[in-house]
């Protein structure tokens, strides 16, 4: 398109705004630029974190730092990048922000979701004017601190967690600052991986920078600026229209974070006309360290829930949404940490539960809407289990790894179908779990099993998706000296049911110590489960455990399924039987949760016994019901 055309494009709309065609082209082009930056970053990084777990993201922000385009990866990062840019705008003299500069930060009080999610952001200049910012972030496996990996066990404040660095210039007018890079890499146990990811994030920013500049050169800087503002306005308009289609009301949820004690995350969501308010002020006071998240992470957590629940048919532009969303928090809580509270595990605790809780409210909102019921989802895997391993591999080399099989959680039940078995993780729909052969080739372990675990999805007329269970032993090395196992949802299920649906299972991890597994294998057998083995079962009561695994120990964990929808007593008995035949539901669970009696010998439903059993369950429910005391509104949790 020529300059004249660009000029026409600008003037053809009313009041100098863009014509809808040029706008649509630029909107999709800006989103494609952001995708290119993400791809570039993944290609350069090459790490499983960026390429399989997709624990990363890339965003484009306007000159003020509002994020108008975010990749389809972990969306909570949108706010991290945005807050980091706003901090830089505030703290740096305008003259110190120039073309070719790139900044980095891992400070959660500035914006990073937790210290491990390093944010790299860069201003984009065209015609000497600041037109936009680009930013990228990748979760790092180790950035120093007393304990390997992210979870700083024993920390009492942020001072005993990973070293912090507020925004600092890593690239100055196109020149990498080797002193800053060296200082950064000095902190980590894995300088090579961390260094590569830094390069990757800078490469992602460089691509976005060059491409936005091309766009400004071709269409004119004013046109691009108008398109960026247009994206925010169009998204806000589209999102407000979506809100008007939905019923008004207030919904609330109370989720829990287990740590040294149980910390409730309480949210009350009010949808009124075309505005949406999330009020977290009743959440628990903060812990000393580890589990809290800062306010930017909490706002990002809300956006991360709103996008998949309400924005299923529109471009994902967080700043546009934010114009219609208000997030209320109270400083000094687990979801709005006050300095110097620690945050090292925030993304699987504070902000994770903020997303889950907002999601539960949104699912109830959709359940109350006839026109949008088909978009309803009960909770997806409401607590992520992660296992960090450090030790010496089968080739005698030091290694650090995160086992993320638990990302294959169950997805939430829908209003027309069950959730997906091993369906995944709401925040990262493209996430991939590793092949066992790749894990075994790289690390000294041997998987005895990795299966879909029956009965882990919440029961319901539509049930939640089941998740995985896996068992492994050490293989090729003497032992695994450092295993850090951490999760929430170990005391109570994070995936709740909706409208009579049941919750999922809880996250469970155990080690059976000193078993006879080696003798069994040598004798030509493979244990079906831990029950087939002699040994001492160690059930971990704490949600965070640092332990080790010896040659005769068998590790087992069960991840978390999805929540159910509607009363399981209303599920057609034949569908329960079908679940039984594929191993998704056991005979006992069919009887207890669904009231369906299965004749396992003849693989059929015992219709008379089922009818009786369902009557009995309903009777039990009536008997156990007792009137509420007081006139107050019931707490839906």
């Amino acid at each position, binding site marked *: 398109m020529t300059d004249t055309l660009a000029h026409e494009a600008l003037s053809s709309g009313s009041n100098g705004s863009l014509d809808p065609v040029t706008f649509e082209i630029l909107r999709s082009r800006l989103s494609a630029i952001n995708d290119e930056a993400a791809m570039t970053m993944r290609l350069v990084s090459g790490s499983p974190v960026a390429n399989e777990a997709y624990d990363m993201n890339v965003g484009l922000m306007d000159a003020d730092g509002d994020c108008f385009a975010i990749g389809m990866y972990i969306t909570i990062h949108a706010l991290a990048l945005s807050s980091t840019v706003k901090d830089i705008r505030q703290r740096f003299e305008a003259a110190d922000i120039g073309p070719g500069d790139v900044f980095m930060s891992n400070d959660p009080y500035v914006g990073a979701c937790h210290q491990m999610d390093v944010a790299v952001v860069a201003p984009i200049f065209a015609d000497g004017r600041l037109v936009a910012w680009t930013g990228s972030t990748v979760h790092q496996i180790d950035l120093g601190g007393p304990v390997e990996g992210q979870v700083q066990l024993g920390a009492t404040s942020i001072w005993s967690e990973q070293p912090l660095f507020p925004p600092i210039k890593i690239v100055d007018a196109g020149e990498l600052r080797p002193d800053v890079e060296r200082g950064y890499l000095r902190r980590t146990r894995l300088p090579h991986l961390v260094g590569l990811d830094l390069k990757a994030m800078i490469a992602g920013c460089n691509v976005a920078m060059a491409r936005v500049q091309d766009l400004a050169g071709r269409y004119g800087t004013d046109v691009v600026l108008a398109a960026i503002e247009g994206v925010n306005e169009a998204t806000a308009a*589209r999102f407000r229209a979506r809100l008007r289609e939905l019923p008004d009301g207030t919904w609330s949820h109370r989720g829990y974070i287990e740590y040294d004690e149980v910390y409730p995350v309480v949210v009350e969501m009010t949808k009124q006309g075309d505005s949406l308010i999330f009020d977290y002020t009743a959440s628990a006071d903060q812990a000393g360290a580890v589990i809290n998240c800062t306010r930017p992470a909490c706002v990002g957590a809300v956006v991360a829930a709103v996008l*998949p629940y309400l924005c299923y048919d529109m471009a994902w532009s967080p700043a546009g949404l934010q114009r219609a969303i208000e997030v209320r928090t109270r400083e000094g809580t687990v979801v709005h940490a006050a300095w110097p509270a620690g945050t090292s595990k925030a993304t699987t605790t504070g902000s994770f539960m903020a997303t889950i809780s907002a999601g539960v409210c949104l699912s109830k909102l959709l359940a109350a809407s006839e026109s949008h019921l088909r978009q309803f989802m009960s909770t997806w895997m409401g607590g992520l289990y992660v296992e960090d391993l450090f030790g010496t591999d089968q080739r005698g080399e030091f290694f650090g790894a995160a086992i993320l099989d638990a990302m294959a959680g169950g997805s939430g039940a829908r209003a027309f179908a069950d959730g997906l078995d091993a369906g995944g993780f709401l925040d990262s729909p493209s*996430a991939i779990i590793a092949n066992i052969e790749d894990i075994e080739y790289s690390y000294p372990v041997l998987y005895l099993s990795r299966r879909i675990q029956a009965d882990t999805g919440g029961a319901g007329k539509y049930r939640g998706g089941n998740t995985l269970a896996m068992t492994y032993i050490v293989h090729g090395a003497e032992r695994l000296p450092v295993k850090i196992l951490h999760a929430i949802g170990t005391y109570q299920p994070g995936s709740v049911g909706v409208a009579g649906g049941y919750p999922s299972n809880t996250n469970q991890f155990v080690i059976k110590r000193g078993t006879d597994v080696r003798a069994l294998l040598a004798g030509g057998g493979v244990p079906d489960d831990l029950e087939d083995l002699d040994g001492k079962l160690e059930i971990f009561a704490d949600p965070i455990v640092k332990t080790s695994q010896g040659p005769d120990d068998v590790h087992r964990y069960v991840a978390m399924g999805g929540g159910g929808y509607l009363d399981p007593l209303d599920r057609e008995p034949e569908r329960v039987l079908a679940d039984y035949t594929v191993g998704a539901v056991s005979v006992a669970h069919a009887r207890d949760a669904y009231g369906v009696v299965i004749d396992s010998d003849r693989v059929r439903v015992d219709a008379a016994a089922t009818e009786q059993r369902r009557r009995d369950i309903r009777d039990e429910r009536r008997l156990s019901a007792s009137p509420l005391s007081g006139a107050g509104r019931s707490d839906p949790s």
Partner: protein
Amino acid sequence: MDRLVAVDSGGTFTDCVTLDAAGLVRSAKAPSTPDDFSEGVVQSVARAAAAEGVELEALLERTGSFCHGTTVATNALLTRSGSTVGLITTKGHEDAIIIGRTIQKAAGLSESELSNLAHLEKAVPIVPRPLIKGVTERIDYRGSVVVPLDTDEAAGAVAELVDAGVEAIAVCFLWSFLNPDHERAVAELIRSRHPHLFVTVSCEVAPVIKEYERCATTVLNGYLSRTTHAYISKLQQRLADGGLAKDPVVMQSIGGLTRAETSKGRAVTLLGSGPTGGVFGAAALGTLIGAENIVTTDVGGTSFDVGLVTDGEPLVVGTPVFDKYHTVLPVIDVVSIGAGGGSVAWIEPGTGLVKVGPQSAGAVPGPACYGAGGTRPTVTDANLLLGRLDADYFLGGQRRLHADLATAAIETHLAAPTGLSVHEAAMAVVDILDARMADLVRMSTIGRGYDPREFALFAFGGAGPLHVGAYAADVGTQRTVVPTNSAVFSAFGIAASDPVAVVQASDPMVAPFDGDRLDAVYAELTERAVEELAANGVTPADITATREVEMRYRGQVHEVRVPVPDGPLGGDSLAALMEEFRLRYNRRYGSGAAADSAVEARTFVVRGVGRQAKPALRPAPLGPEDPAAALVAERPVWFRPLGGFASTPIYRRELLEPGNGIEGQAMIEASNTTMLIHPGQRAEVDAWGNILLDTTGGTR
């Protein structure tokens, strides 16, 4: 026996291209016949014969090589009409194919599909859970047996599957690519007791590290076996009855041909072979005209397919997705979006923005202007309104287009709601589609680590030449080529192909590598490739075997294919291999990307090609630069830079001569496609009849 016949079965049309000894190319089209695809194949050949003025039998009797691209395997998968297949796998790991690494729900989806989380679904299973049996056995990462195979248990599992009525059994154990003994033992057991059953084992189909993908590939091979076998047999019979003396050869998804008879046991290698012909055609044509690096773009009614040729070789992807299943089958890498002539334009509620696709009006009812009941505006309607299609000469006049219906659709659904004029609205639809196509070209090159501006862009398929002037200019590719025979280019690509045998196996190792171990691996793979080609009737002297290895840095996921030099591997050649890996890795992923890590070699590949003598395409002498002889009309065509309709010369493709040069704005019409040359652009017909488009001077 001097004739070469190539037939490409597509969803809508079956295209036939014939080559005679003098290098003369003829083509014909017939409707595809999904109930029995062999009918459409024979029809297309009959039409090609008729075009020469001979009977079908006369053509087939003179045919020395009958090459065929079929979508029968792809269709059997998409419609889930395959065999009842059972799976025997390692105990404890029965669910791997259902877990699908959890990506299964999202595999192959576009971003807009992906953002609709409540409607994601996993694959419709090709093997139901009750037909998956775990058997006690275990091999480890070194290939050592940790737990021996329990043969009694295996026999019991087989008996249960047979009782359940399976037509095929797939066997996939962990680490079988390092130690195939357990899989082979189970296969032997099945074959000895149930000789009628189709048995397929992962160590033969896809001996590659990655158990989910290997398992899915093997089960797919079992699932597709019956349908493919039946189709190939029927086609062989019909062609033999018609006088064809030799067994036909079929196009594989990795490219290259293999005997129809061989393909019966390897149905999975035909999966997704549809777009392959076009990419190979581009590579072959590129060699002829000196284009080594090519982006291929195929624009049809519903999809826009992009492939890449680098250094003269089509780009291969190692883990393609087929209807949500990731596999480990090297295939030609083609990326597709739902964008084409049939894409529907609509207004987004809430914002009033014009959107195009991904929904398509399909063949029925088709665009509004077809007059077949469609009322929603499509890209084809927009092109018609802008004068870019001739209502009376669409598909050579076979289908009359109704401009009034197109106008009504655009007026009602686009112009009225936006306040744009009908022509501005139509132009908006085309602009938006062109921009999306440019985005996909950019994404599919940059996403694979290449800069599209360093590539030549080839455009073919029914609608490619109409849009290429816009998206090529947008991307900024160096050269733009609309090949001769662009509307039947896939069939042309099949005709240009040679017999190929690709054999691969994983044997992961960490550098420094053991040359003797590598020599042994390659010796075995080469032997298998040569054997297979010999079975195709290729004489050893015509075989070239090239070797590749997939390497990566330890702890990284990106694998890079590196060519392996001929001859025994050791000191110098291994050092050169490592250097080549670093070079390629840096070129693709950025300099110094991962240089400090240990290097792994994982999967070894041998590609055997049986060079066949083919009639050479001959350049014609260049004629006059003036194209006046081909000028058939002038028509108003709408161009934004010209402020609306401008009188535009129309040239007839068949009348153009090599050497003709055409200044935009102009249009070139053929019976099956239309090419648009924008103002300021220039087209030139080369000696082979290709149209070279220079987009650098254009304004759009």
